[in-house]
């Protein structure tokens, strides 16, 4: 085994960074699709329709109990089978698709709880006040409740985003070449000689991305916190 080679870390970072779009694309796609799905789940949970509420709660409970790496393989092997039975062939579909589907399924459950608690955090009296001066329910929600809920949701949303990004590192297990996937390829290229250096480089990249996410949403929260008494930013 070669001695530890710290400069190698810096050498491979540019190569890893070229795969950053894959990692970030996976996160963005998941936030988009999982976020939308999570929004509907949250809606079902706060509305008083017993059947949809129960379904949303069961969904959240079940998916939250499945480790993401297990879910990843269930989707990777299960989804093509399922779709084949209705005549859709999944051969040749990019692995990124399965990754986004998997993490959307899981992320929706987490983010629906973030949305739900943010919605409930806004005193319903403000909604009543809004309709009492003649606003419709939709206007009261969009103009009064939602803007305040968003501010409340930001810290938890930031956490969920960071968790998602880190769990996304598991995507290489089904063959996605993101920064971790490429890191593994580099390890292979040197027959495992630089394993520690590669993982340290990956750790540094995740560290930088996490700090950037935190700083960014901390600033957003500060900007949106008009009229809030105390400011509690994550960063």
């Amino acid at each position, binding site marked *: 085994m070669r001695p530890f080679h710290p400069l190698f870390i810096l050498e491979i970072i540019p190569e890893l960074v070229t795969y950053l779009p894959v990692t970030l694309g996976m996160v963005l796609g998941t936030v988009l699709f999982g976020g939308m799905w999570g929004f509907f789940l949250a809606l079902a949970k706060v509305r008083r329709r017993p059947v949809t509420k129960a379904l949303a709660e069961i969904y959240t409970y079940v998916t939250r109990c499945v480790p993401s790496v297990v879910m990843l393989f269930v989707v990777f092997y299960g989804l093509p089978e399922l779709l084949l039975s209705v005549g859709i062939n999944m051969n040749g579909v990019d692995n990124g698709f399965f990754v986004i589907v998997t993490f959307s399924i899981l992320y929706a459950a987490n983010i629906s709880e973030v949305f739900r608690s943010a919605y409930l955090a806004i005193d319903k009296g403000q909604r009543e006040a809004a309709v009492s001066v003649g606003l419709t329910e939709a206007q009261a929600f969009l103009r009064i409740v939602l803007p305040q809920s968003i501010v409340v949701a930001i810290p938890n949303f930031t956490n969920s985003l960071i968790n998602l990004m880190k769990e996304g590192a598991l995507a290489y297990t089904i063959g996605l070449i993101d920064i971790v996937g490429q890191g593994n390829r580099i390890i292979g290229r040197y027959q495992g000689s630089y394993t520690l250096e590669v993982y340290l480089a990956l750790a540094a990249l995740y560290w930088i991305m996490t700090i950037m996410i935190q700083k960014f949403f901390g600033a957003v929260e500060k900007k949106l916190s008009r*009229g809030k008494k105390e400011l509690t930013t994550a960063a």
Partner: protein
Amino acid sequence: MLEIRNIHKTFGGNQVLKGVNIKVEKGDVVVILGPSGSGKTTLLRCINFLERADEGSLDFDEIHTELKNASRRTVNKIRKKTAFVFQNYNLFQNKTALQNVMEGLTVARKVPREEAEVIAKEALDKVGLADRYGYYPSQLSGGQQQRVGIARAVAVRPEVILFDEPTSALDPELIGEVLCVMKELAREGVTMVVVTHEMSFAHDVANRVVFMEGGVVVEEGTPRQIFQSPREERTSQFLHRINRDYDYSI
């Protein structure tokens, strides 16, 4: 102008309103008195559909509707004729005092922005907050917040303002400033229905006092009748007890 007949409301197994009738004429200041749990607040909230009554009908000018199955449009129409002042103010926390008052004008009534601003400033001036336009609710005292709440209600020029214990969350020093504003409104002829425990307000400002208990109206009449010669034993008992504890002059 406004008449509600035979209103019933049950929460779970608890029957809160058991057939209340109430009639409000233009310019009336109706004060509803009664012990906690007598259904005063629920009655008020049923008038502008913050609660849905189980039974009863409502006549408001030309509108006639059953309370139970009023359509969304009718509800919105009635809400535009009324305004509500809440016990805990319920100001929009993400908006300034001025924006709080303008919201009902610009959004619900489509009043142009500049015009709405003029009306809103007038309303805030009237409640003595000319120097607080740009303040957020979190930067105002309770009494100031409640006065913004009143300005928000006044600005939309409703036909009746419903006050739900507007001073109950305030300390004694701040109660006076809110009652003064309400007294001034009454003097200007604003129609008001007020649920309160402020006996002096009921006595001095109301032209009709309604005493409720256990979900029914026990007695109603002029303040003089109610305070000086109540017909019902229960009314005099209640007034006797409460008068010793609460006495603020305005």
